[in-house]
Structures are given as structure tokens and as C-alpha cells.
């Protein structure tokens, strides 16, 4: 009955099938095959990435939970732990932008509160095609509204994120969502099914035929047959999730349960088998008891459904009634659908028959890991050169105006104004700053978070791209005075069966590893999204790094905006003659090529440490890191973000190409402004850190003015630049 066609539909190879037969000692029936197809999918099993992910540094003295659970956990003192993770929802967001993004938020929130943490912040990392195409605008409009629709309703602030635009995302947008929660250290919960005889409860929404094959879809390329592969789109129900969140935290707080797991991708299949496997136990359930939304669902469909807003709980036998009472308080049913056993098997009954009877270990742990072939991509050699070098623009004002109208650089208020970024009243820095800052109530502390990932860098030099993503996220934290304590990452790549993609993947991981080691920060989890190809075209490799930082005194922080006229502008770090892979080249010269900026991690670290020290001593009026758009854009943003739109005049002295000086993206640079009386202490501090401090000029006036050795390069009114920067994205949407 199980033939090649069926295997293909289930994305399983013949070798995998034979292995399954061997492992379970029989031919699987259709439902059992479905279970394996889900759990052995790339999305769930990490079969192509596992051996490479092992390289990431995961140790650290404050790590409570590294990779392997729903989210990573780090001890932050005072009996508290921070729980965080990033996830992708790329494919669903392409099919149905609003619901795809919304359910992505729902999923990552469940990952956090499943562990006993109250989610306190969401961040989003988005990648779209250029906004002159109506289709791309529609996708962006839907995605942003979907994230807002879910996050705002459930009452978790979306405090920041990032948006990049590039052609390669036109048919494959990326939607990565990060969530962070806070738990009491002694009230953390895991996906455990311990204690034979303990009841297994199903809570939340009813099961429908939603997203059947969602995980397998995320494990294959989109081709012409997109239409057929399209599973039933899931519609998010943030209200139901809010009730689930409160009820789950309440049963955890009262210590009524043994373990809990959300039912996201791979639903009932994944939660039952993982919980049993994690505890070396077994689970037996009866599908007739599963609350169902649609009639006539088969065991196959019920087991594979990806209906949202559902959780599986193993309760303490003697506390079941109390658990049910809490759920009833929140108008939710908690239905006993089975029990924990000690036979190591997943047994599923329906209609009086046993429809699944398989050992859990092979399902969860014994999927083969592949070392897929890798090869240097053919595009690399020609494209990583910058030959011939582009001509130097005659009018830098024009080049600057053009650059400010690149949507990757222009203001993202159109996006974050749609997100409730203030609910829960912890948001100490509003979106627009380099990092988001959340105070922790009843303490003096704060947590900072930054997401980062420049895929053009990763495309032209995957290893450097990986390194820079970590370094830049950490640099963003340092600009608000915080030190990094943990990392999560979302690795978005094309089809791993293509050797070039595998090569990109390996190298990005090497870069991330090197940088995390240099900063001595553990990776506590993440997510891999492969098969981001549509019609044979792969996206640029897109690692998105989420770094969490810690600030011990919430008052010792600063923001990128200029605070007053007459402050001295200084540069921490050095300008270099680097133009490659810059937004300037891409947007002004239409060239996506060149050498990615070099990065020396020990210099990088020193610059960041200096910045943190200066902020903690209260020396800085503002700090902003130099990234896309280079020094000119960095300085301009400090003006744009200041309430009074304070301008600046600087005179640069470096002997390098002037466009590289203005717009190049050399790493390890932070622009700071200081009151005159703080300059000397800052200079001394820099000396102690063995770093030179370049004085650039002063804040003040109502123009953005940049000279080079006394000669004027750039001179535009702040408000003129501001309007371009501010209106660009809203204007794109008004074209509708």
C-alpha cells in the first residue's frame, strides 16, 4: 500500500522509509507514515543542519537551558530568568501574509509561555521585495497588520525589529519573530511526560483540518504546484491565546502540572511523541476525545493538524480537577484525552481501534542526520570583486538624498506605529533606538534586545556575514549601555540539497560561532528555515541574530538622538576605505557586489566596551552605531531622531575615497555626542581602553554639513533630509 508516490507526497526517501520499517519492526500504516513524515521533515528533525549547528557555542555560566527546548533560558539574577527564542514563518506569510504572520506571532508566544515565562516583548525581522511592486506592498501591508493584529490583541508589545528590502525576497518574503519572557527561576516548565498514569490533557482551540502538511511544506521548495501543496491556511485567534496564556501561567504558578508542550507545527504528533521521548515514557491517547471543529476527520488528519492555540498538558493525577477549574475560570475546556505510560510507545486509539502503535524514540530521535554536499557558489568569485570601481558621484547631496530614500534606510515608523509597543509599561526606549530596552519592574534592571542580519554581506561572504550579524547586534546593545548575555538565531536559507546553499550555511555558522566565542556569549536556541526558494531561485542566505543584553542600572542608558546643540561629536573606531556590499553601492550604483567590510572581533569588542563604560559613567549624550548607509546616514539619523531636529557640522580628515568615507560600511564604529565638559573624561577613558578617539565636529544648526579636510562635501537642511527619510515608506503605500 505504501508506494513511491505516497512516499514522495510525504517527502520521505526510500532509504528513510526502509529505516523506519527497520526501527519500528513493521510496515507503518498511513497514519504512522504521516507521523514520521512530519517528525522527520527538515522543519522538525533538522536533518540537514544538525551536524553543523553542533558547532555553535552553547555553554555559559548563566545558561539554564540551551538549545533543545522550546526556548533558551538565562539566569538574570534576583531569582529571575529570561526566556527567549526566534522563529520563522516565511512560507505561510507568503501564502497569506496577514494570517501567516499573525500565527507566527502566536507560535513564538506559545514557545515562551509554555516554559512558564510571561512574554514581555516581541520583535520582528522582516525581508520583502522592493516596494515599487504592488505584490510586495500587499505582502508587507498584510504581514505588518498580521503581527500587529495578534501581538496588540494579546497585549505583548512589539518593541522593535528590522526590515530590509531586496529583490531576492519578492517571491519569498521572510517573517522572523522573536519573543522574550520572564520567569521565576524556580517555576520553569518543560515538555515532560513523567509518571505513568498521569492524565494527558488537551486545552485550547478545537482541532480542524488546518495546515495539514504545513511542516512538510516548509521542508520543500515552492514550484508550479504551489496551489496543490497549499494546506488549509490557519486563522489566528489571539483572544483564545490570551486566555490560554493566562490559564497556563496560572496552573504553573499553582504547581498543578508535570509538563506542558504547545501544539504548533506537527501538532498532536509532535507534542505527544516529544513529551514522551523527553521523559523516556510513553503516551496513549484516544482521538475520539479530541475536541474537533470539523466533521469526519480521520486519525491521520487529527494527528497531523496544525490548528493554532492548542496545548498539551500532563497534569499531576491528584490535581486534575484543580487544573480543570483554572481553565474553566478562563472559559476554556481542559479535556483528558489519554495518559502517560511507561512502555516507550505512542499509542493512539480511535473508534475502538488502535490506529498508531510505534516506539517514540525513532520518531523523535532517530531521523538520520545528513552531511549534505557543499560547494563554493559560482557567483562568488566574480561578484565579490569591485571591478571596475564605481565612479565617485559629483553631487553628494543628491547621493545622500537617494540613499535616504532607500526603504532599507528610511524611517520604519509606518511599521512600528501599527504595533502596540508600549503595553505592559516596560518599554524604556521607543522603537527607533539601536536596541529595545525593557525595564524589569520592581528591580533596577533592564534587558536590551537587538535583531540583526545583513543578507547582502552573507551572500557575498557568508562567514563575514555571520560574524558581522553577531557583532552588529552586540554593538546595538552597547549603544544603549547593555552587555550581551545570550543569543538566539534564525537561519533562513535556500534548498539545502543544493551544494552552494549548504556551503553558505556552513560558513555562516562558522562566522556566528567565531563571533559568539569572541564575545563569550552562548547560543541558547534558534530556528533553521531551509527551502526558501521559489521557482528555483534561492533567497540570499539570511542569518538573523537576536541578542539579549543586560543593563544593571536602567537609568544608565542613552539613545541615538542628539540632545542639545554644541555637543562634541566623536567617533569610536575607525573609518576605512571600504565600499563593498554597501547599501550605497546597491541603491545608488545598483551594484550588489564587492568585498564585505572586514571585521576584527577584538577591536570590535574594545569599541563596544568603551561605549558601555562611557554610558555607565554618564558621559554620552547620544550613541549610534554606523551601519547601512555609513557615517553620513548615521549622523543624519541622530539629527532626525532628535526632538528639535538638531543639525551638525563635521570635518573629516581620513585619506580615503570620499564616498567610502561618507557611505562605506566599515565595522566597529560608533558615533557619540558629548557635552563639552565630558569630552576630557571620555578621551581619558578611550585611552584606558587603548582606543583613539576622533573628534568629528559639533552638533547644532539646522543643516547636515560634512566637510572633508575643510572642503564641503554635503550640506542639506535637516528638515529636507528628514522629510525624505520619513515619508518614503508611507508614500510607497499611498501609491496603492
Amino acid at each position: 500500500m505504501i508506494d513511491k508516490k505516497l512516499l514522495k507526497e510525504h517527502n520521505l526517501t526510500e532509504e528513510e522509509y526502509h529505516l523506519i520499517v527497520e526501527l519500528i519492526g513493521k510496515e507503518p500504516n498511513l497514519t504512522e507514515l504521516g507521523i514520521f513524515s512530519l517528525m522527520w521533515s527538515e522543519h522538525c528533525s533538522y536533518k540537514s543542519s544538525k551536524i553543523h549547528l553542533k558547532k555553535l557555542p552553547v555553554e555559559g555560566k548563566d545558561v539554564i537551558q540551551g538549545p533543545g527546548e522550546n526556548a533558551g533560558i538565562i539566569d538574570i539574577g534576583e531569582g529571575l530568568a529570561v526566556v527567549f527564542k526566534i522563529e520563522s514563518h516565511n512560507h505561510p506569510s507568503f501564502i497569506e501574509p496577514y494570517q501567516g504572520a499573525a500565527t507566527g506571532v502566536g507560535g513564538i508566544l506559545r514557545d515562551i509561555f509554555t516554559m512558564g515565562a510571561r512574554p514581555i516583548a516581541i520583535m520582528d525581522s522582516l525581508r520583502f521585495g522592493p516596494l515599487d511592486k504592488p505584490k510586495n506592498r500587499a505582502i508587507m501591508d498584510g504581514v505588518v497588520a498580521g503581527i500587529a493584529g495578534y501581538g496588540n490583541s494579546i497585549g505583548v508589545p512589539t518593541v522593535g525589529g528590522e526590515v530590509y528590502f531586496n529583490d531576492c525576497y519578492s517571491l519569498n518574503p521572510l517573517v522572523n519573530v522573536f519573543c522574550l519572557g520572564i520567569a521565576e527561576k524556580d517555576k520553569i516548565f518543560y515538555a515532560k511526560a513523567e509518571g505513568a498514569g498521569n492524565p494527558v490533557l488537551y486545552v485550547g482551540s478545537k482541532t480542524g483540518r488546518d495546515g495539514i502538511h504545513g511542516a512538510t511544506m516548509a521542508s520543500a521548495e515552492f514550484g508550479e504546484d504551489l496551489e496543490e501543496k497549499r494546506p488549509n491556511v490557519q486563522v489566528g485567534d489571539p483572544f483564545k491565546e490570551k486566555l490560554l496564556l493566562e490559564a497556563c501561567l496560572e496552573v504553573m504558578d499553582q504547581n498543578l502540572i508535570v509538563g506542558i508542550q504547545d501544539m504548533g507545527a506537527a501538532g498532536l504528533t509532535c507534542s505527544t511523541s516529544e513529551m514522551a521521548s523527553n521523559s523516556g515514557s510513553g503516551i496513549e491517547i484516544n482521538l475520539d476525545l479530541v475536541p474537533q471543529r470539523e466533521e469526519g476527520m480521520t486519525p491521520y488528519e487529527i494527528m497531523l493538524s496544525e490548528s493554532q492555540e492548542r496545548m498539551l498538558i500532563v497534569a499531576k493525577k491528584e490535581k486534575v480537577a484543580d487544573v480543570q477549574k483554572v481553565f474553566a475560570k478562563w472559559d476554556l475546556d481542559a479535556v483528558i484525552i489519554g495518559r502517560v505510560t511507561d512502555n516507550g510507545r505512542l499509542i493512539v486509539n480511535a473508534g475502538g481501534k488502535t490506529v498508531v502503535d510505534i516506539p517514540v524514540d525513532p520518531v523523535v530521535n532517530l531521523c538520520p542526520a545528513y552531511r549534505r554536499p557543499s560547494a563554493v557558489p559560482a557567483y562568488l568569485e566574480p561578484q565579490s570583486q569591485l571591478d571596475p570601481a564605481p565612479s565617485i558621484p559629483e553631487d553628494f547631496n543628491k547621493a545622500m538624498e537617494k540613499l535616504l530614500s532607500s526603504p532599507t534606510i528610511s524611517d520604519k515608523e509606518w511599521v512600528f506605529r501599527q504595533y502596540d509597543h508600549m503595553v505592559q509599561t516596560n518599554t524604556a526606549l521607543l522603537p527607533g533606538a539601536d536596541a529595545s530596552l525593557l525595564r524589569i519592574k520592581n528591580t533596577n534592571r533592564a534587558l536590551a534586545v537587538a535583531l540583526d542580519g545583513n543578507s547582502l554581506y552573507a551572500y557575498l561572504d557568508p562567514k563575514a556575514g555571520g560574524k558581522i550579524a553577531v557583532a552588529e547586534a552586540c554593538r546595538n546593545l552597547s549603544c544603549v549601555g547593555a552587555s550581551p548575555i545570550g543569543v538566539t538565531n534564525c537561519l533562513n536559507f535556500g534548498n539545502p540539497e543544493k551544494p552552494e546553499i549548504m556551503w553558505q550555511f556552513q560558513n555562516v555558522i562558522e562566522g556566528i560561532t567565531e563571533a559568539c566565542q569572541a564575545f563569550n556569549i552562548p547560543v541558547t536556541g534558534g530556528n533553521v528555515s531551509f527551502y526558501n526558494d521559489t521557482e528555483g531561485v534561492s533567497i540570499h542566505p539570511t542569518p538573523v541574530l537576536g541578542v539579549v543584553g543586560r543593563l544593571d542600572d536602567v537609568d544608565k542608558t542613552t539613545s541615538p538622538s542628539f540632545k542639545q546643540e554644541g555637543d562634541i561629536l566623536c567617533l569610536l573606531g575607525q573609518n576605512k576605505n571600504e565600499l563593498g556590499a554597501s547599501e550605497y553601492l546597491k541603491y545608488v550604483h545598483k551594484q550588489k557586489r564587492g568585498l564585505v567590510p572586514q571585521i576584527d572581533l577584538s577591536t570590535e569588542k574594545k569599541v563596544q566596551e568603551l561605549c558601555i563604560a562611557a554610558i555607565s559613567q554618564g558621559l554620552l549624550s547620544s550613541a549610534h552605531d554606523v551601519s547601512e548607509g555609513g557615517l553620513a546616514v548615521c549622523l543624519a539619523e541622530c539629527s532626525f531622531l532628535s526632538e528639535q531636529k538638531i543639525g551638525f557640522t563635521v570635518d573629516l580628515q581620513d585619506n580615503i575615497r570620499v564616498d567610502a568615507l561618507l557611505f562605506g560600511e566599515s565595522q566597529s564604529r560608533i558615533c557619540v555626542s558629548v557635552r563639552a565638559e565630558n569630552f576630557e573624561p571620555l578621551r581619558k577613558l578611550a585611552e584606558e581602553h587603548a582606543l583613539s578617539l576622533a573628534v568629528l565636529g559639533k552638533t547644532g544648526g539646522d543643516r547636515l554639513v560634512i566637510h572633508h579636510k575643510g572642503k564641503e562635501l554635503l550640506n542639506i537642511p535637516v528638515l529636507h533630509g528628514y522629510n525624505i527619510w520619513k515619508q518614503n515608506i508611507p508614500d510607497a503605500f499611498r501609491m496603492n
Partner: protein
Amino acid sequence: MKFGVVIFPGSNCDYDTYFVLKDVFDQETTFLWHKEHSLHDVDCVVLPGGFSYGDYLRSGAIAKFSPLMQEVKEFADKGGLVLGICNGFQVLLELELLPGAMTRNKNLKFLCQHVHLRTENTHTPFTNRARKGDVIKIPIAHFDGNYFVEPETLHTIKQNDQIIFRYSEPNGHLSERANVNGSMHNIAGLINTGGNVLGMMPHPERASEAILGSKDGRIIFESIIHWLR
């Protein structure tokens, strides 16, 4: 003096409001569960922001039927102080404790940002510490804050001096630009004829601590506390 903060399923500014009253202003404060039939002798009921019942039908439409809201209605009819913030304001409109209704923001997007409000009437329990014309900076966060009322009713509420806050420029000037959600007559906050029930879309609890970027929302809580003392 005791404050009660109502929790509906889907409320999400309940803890924020509780925190401000309890920890920032050091007032006795209790939560009131929507299924209860008692207000536990509170002196002021606060209906917090959020998405009661998901706001799936209309903002505030379902919350008005909860058992507790019948108590709140009686309490208000007897002159008890009721403050509705954001979704709380929407519930008060649905309950008809305040006139009018909310429609979708004029740009059809959710809006989260700081706005400026001009204080129009200070002879109320909620604004007695302010001066008429004071401009305060407070955040909004809503999808349905576009206030609508029939012209006759608008005329009446103007005559009764029921308009408490209006969206304005930082200098107090009333403009279309400042009226971000498109509300009729720039109305951001409204009181009942009895002068004891205030509804406002902006969130004073998000502007009561320096670390959150504005302390201007304090004036409302300070006024209530002063009034009750």
C-alpha cells in the same frame, strides 16, 4: 480610598493600571473579575485597555454584558467614579454610560504613538489638578478611536462642557493633523452629564513614570486621589 481595576477576558492593560495605582501612587487597589457581582466597596472603578473578548464583534460590545458591568452601571448611576481607558472607554460607550460610538481610525491602521491633548474642562474629579488649556503628552494605542456622535448630541455635550480632552498640537492648537484617528471635534476624552464617568482613548497609565518618556498622565490619577481624599 480604594481603587478597583476590572479584568475582562482579553483585558491587557489591567496589570499596567494596577501597577500605577498600587506601586506608583501607593493606593489600595484591587482587581475586579468580570464574573463577580460585587465591587468590593471600591471608591473608583477603572476599566482598563485591551481587547475584551477579542473585540471580535465591535470594541467593547461583549464586555458590557458581563455580570460585573451591571454593578458598575448601578455604581455609576449612584455617582461612583468610573474611569474607562481605551477599551474601557469603548465599553462605557457600548454601555451607554457615555454618548457616541467609536469607528475605525481614519487611516484604517492601528495607531500607537504619543499624542498631545488639550485639557478642556478642569471642574471634574479627573482633571481638578490641571489648568484649563494645559497640553499633556500621552500615548494612544488603538484601532477604533475615531469618535462619532450625531450632530445634535455633539451640540449637547459641548453645551454641557462634557468634552475633557481634545487632540491638539503641542502648543494646544487644534488641527486636523493632530487629530490622528479622525475623531469628531478632536474628541479624546469625554465625561457624562453626572460628571462622574470619564472615558478617554489615551493611556494615562503609560505616561506616569519618567522612564516611560512622559509623566503627564499622572495629572489624572492625582486629580482622582485629590478628589476622593
